[in-house]
């Protein structure tokens, strides 16, 4: 268990608690709210098959991650011009990453990218 960890179980909840304490005077519901941040021991489950299940999940997850990576890669392959990104950022007042992404999604066509952003 995490007991020897320097910053343990309740650490993050404590700061919240002291904050709620000062409200306790006025709120009758504060007692219930207090419980929200109480530390409770995690319930354990025991099973021998956990390992098998875990490995299956790990594999699937990797599959999903791979697919996503491939998609991102495909997008990254699209070449875009810096001036186009600048124009989009200036005209539409959006962040650079978003401008770049929209441009890539539109295969680098700045007119289409701008049009889609006006929708």
């Amino acid at each position, binding site marked *: 268990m*995490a007991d*020897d*960890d*320097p*910053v*343990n*179980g*309740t*650490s*993050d*909840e*404590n*700061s*919240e*608690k*002291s*904050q709620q*304490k*000062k409200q306790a005077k*006025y709120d009758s519901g504060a007692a219930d*709210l207090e419980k*929200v*941040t109480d530390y*409770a021991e*995690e*319930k*354990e*489950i*025991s*099973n021998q*098959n*956990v*390992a098998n*299940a*875990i490995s*299956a*999940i*790990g594999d*699937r*997850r990797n599959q*999903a991650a791979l697919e996503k990576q491939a998609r991102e890669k495909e997008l990254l392959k699209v070449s875009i011009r810096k001036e*186009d990104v600048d*124009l989009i950022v200036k*005209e*539409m*007042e959006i962040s650079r990453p978003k401008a770049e992404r929209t441009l890539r999604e539109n295969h680098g066509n*700045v*007119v289409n990218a*701008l*049009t889609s*952003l*006006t*929708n």
Partner: protein
Amino acid sequence: MPSSNPLPPKENALFKRILKSYEHKQYKNGLKFAKQILSNPKYQEHGETLAMKGLTLNCLGRKEEAYEYVRRGLRNDLKSHVCWHVYGLLQRSDKKYDEAIKCYRNALKWDKDNIQILRDLSLLQIQMRDLEGYRDTRYQLLMLRPTQRASWIGYAVSFHLLEDYKNALSILDTFLDQQQRLNNFDYEHSELLLYQNMVIQESGDLKQALKHLETFSDQIVDKLTLKENLADLNLKLENWERSEQLYEELIQRNPENTIYYEKMIEAKRLTKDSDIVEFYSNYDIKFPRAMPPKRLSLNYASGDQFKALVDKYMQKALSKGVPPLFVDLRSLYRDQQKVQIIQDLALGYLTSLNKVNKFSETETSNGPKEPASAILWVYYYLAQHFDYLNQTEKALEYIETAIHHTPTLIELFVTKGRINKHAGDPIEAYRCLDEAQAMDTADRYINSKCAKYMLRANLIKEAEDTCAKFTREGVSAMENLNEMQCMWFQTECALAYQRLGKFGEALKKCHEVDRHFSEIIEDQFDFHTYCMRKMTLRSYVGLLRLEDVLRGHPFYFKAAKCAIEVYLHLFDSPLKNENAEQEMNTENLAPSELKKLRNKQRKAKKKAEQESAQAREAQVKRDQHHKSRQQGDVEADAPQLDELIPDKLARVDDPLDNAIKFLQPLQTLARDQIDTHLMAFEVYYRKRKILLMLQSIKRAHQVDASHPKLHSCFIRFLQEVKENQHTFDPSVSQVITSEMKSLLTTKDPKVLNKEFLDRHKRSLRAALEGGLVMYKLDEKSQKDALNLVTPSNIEVKYQDVDIEICTEILKCLRNGLFGTNVQSQMDSFVAHCRKLFPHAEAFKPPREVTVQPQTNHVIESDSN
């Protein structure tokens, strides 16, 4: 424990005691132990101890020292995960979530499998909706602690939120598989099953969802939710009979739930109105005490059948004295025929009650007489009825009769106030409410209503004093209402300030409302751990989804709209420097007058100074009072937000960018409101962002293509394009050209304006926009434009004449939007409006408008 500077056993034991003390909130002890380590010259710069000391200090409210110690600790031990973790916790308690995430990531660099840090990180990720990051962290947690329940649940939820239902379900399946073997069926297990069902339903596989529910029905203890879900799924899968049977059982269980009846009708596939009326009348016999069958049938009945039903319904309510009868029936008023029937009936009751004390003269022989109050409720109903139909005089007549009959009924005064409000007289309206409020000062509803009406009459101080009767003592009402997140009050306050031209004050109120929304979003933090532990996952996911669209709430919309309007106004006419303003006025004054003026100014200045000094003193007193109340209490870790200073707010350098901050949430969350896009246009028009103007127009066009205000946007857009085309980037021009083709038939503003006016001949709102454009495009057309918006037969020519639009026209005339030399036209327009709306304040001669509100016996002086 990896650390670049390990402590010897004795000190290490002390360090562990610091941690223990921190966990048990014995902060003083923690500081003591820290001191013991740090007083040893060998370890006085020990990083982890310094960091922990800082964290402990933070819990005692000594924030500045806390930062100092934690930073010093970190500098002394940059490779310690403890120091980074502590720094993250500190940032987190300060709500700097992005910074905190960075700290946690650094901590994980030095200890990548630290469960506690991973947990803290996952909480921040879900709070910030970094869903993919959340999923990855939950994956690591599952790998590290596969025997813990929360590991599985958290991982499943992460997939659910990413709408990856397949993975979410397979993880839940695996997990439940193990649970079932334990035969441990409790409430939490039941909730988990219902959550699983929710995920299946959202994945779209309703058949599977139904099968799942049926399989586990005996393990689900929330029987009502189970049955409602079963009934709904069967309905969606078109298992009509089964669904009907289930809804029948649900109605048996609770015959007051209107949804059950509506779903039942769907299951029975009743579409003809007459069938539906019959359906309801059957249930009326079955459940004689239930309201829905009686009320809902009125929606579908018509003609004589409606008359018979509504007659019975109204008689019962009037005889019993049900105040909200009108509110209950109001939704029927969409149908003109029904309005007539109701009116005839109510007037008939009046005649018969006056004659024979019964609702009908024909049944004089049998049955007991109606109570004396029946006629009062009929008056009350008719007053509201005629008010709704905008027949102010009749409405007032009935309410006066009612008040004469029973001068002590509070509802009557509220209604009288409302009639006056609708008639455009906020002062008289507030007086009525004040009277109502004085009749029962312990009634908080009336108290709030009265305050609201006072704000509508721009009486802010009075409203605050009224509210003070219910707010906590010792704090000013304004402060207390802010603390309690009383948004309706703050928004109405902002609007009143806006009307009074106190723009800084208005902005302050709007920002306060905005902060409430931020706070509500902050408040979800606790639920990430709580809900996961209590297994209330359906509610948890519901909460997350609610928080995602929180600023789509009408309360936010209203406050944001006010803020944006104020910022636009401040951009158009910035507040002048006070001194400069005075200089300007003095230019064409005779020396003697100038001297007088100077004297006056000096006096005013002195007075203002005195007042502000007094205010400061009061503030100091209040603060002291406040502190003494809270003595001993830690002014804990709530981050101190910048104080909102009205004058500063009103003199911002970039009003438009500030407006955009309020606008952005609306653009994503209130896209279906045309006002969002019209305001966006106004902002971007002033920023000269042509494509964003186009964006606003396109979106507005989608919501309501024929909205009058949109027309003016189109015209201004066309002009902007025409004037500045040469400066556009070629790609931008291309976008504009192709988009305009699909939106507009012509590029000539004059033609466009004519087409628009021809299309909306009966709308005064359209005429106003068209007229303004007409004058702007060609000043020679002033006369035509004026005749368009202020014809002598205005109420005949247009079908949407009301106080609102006439006030707007008057404002345009006054502001010279139709040019100068319009005085005579304006005078006759105002005279005509006064005839149409005799109560409306906007058209009364100015002398009458500025009547000072009487000081009232109910207003008590503030206790401060």
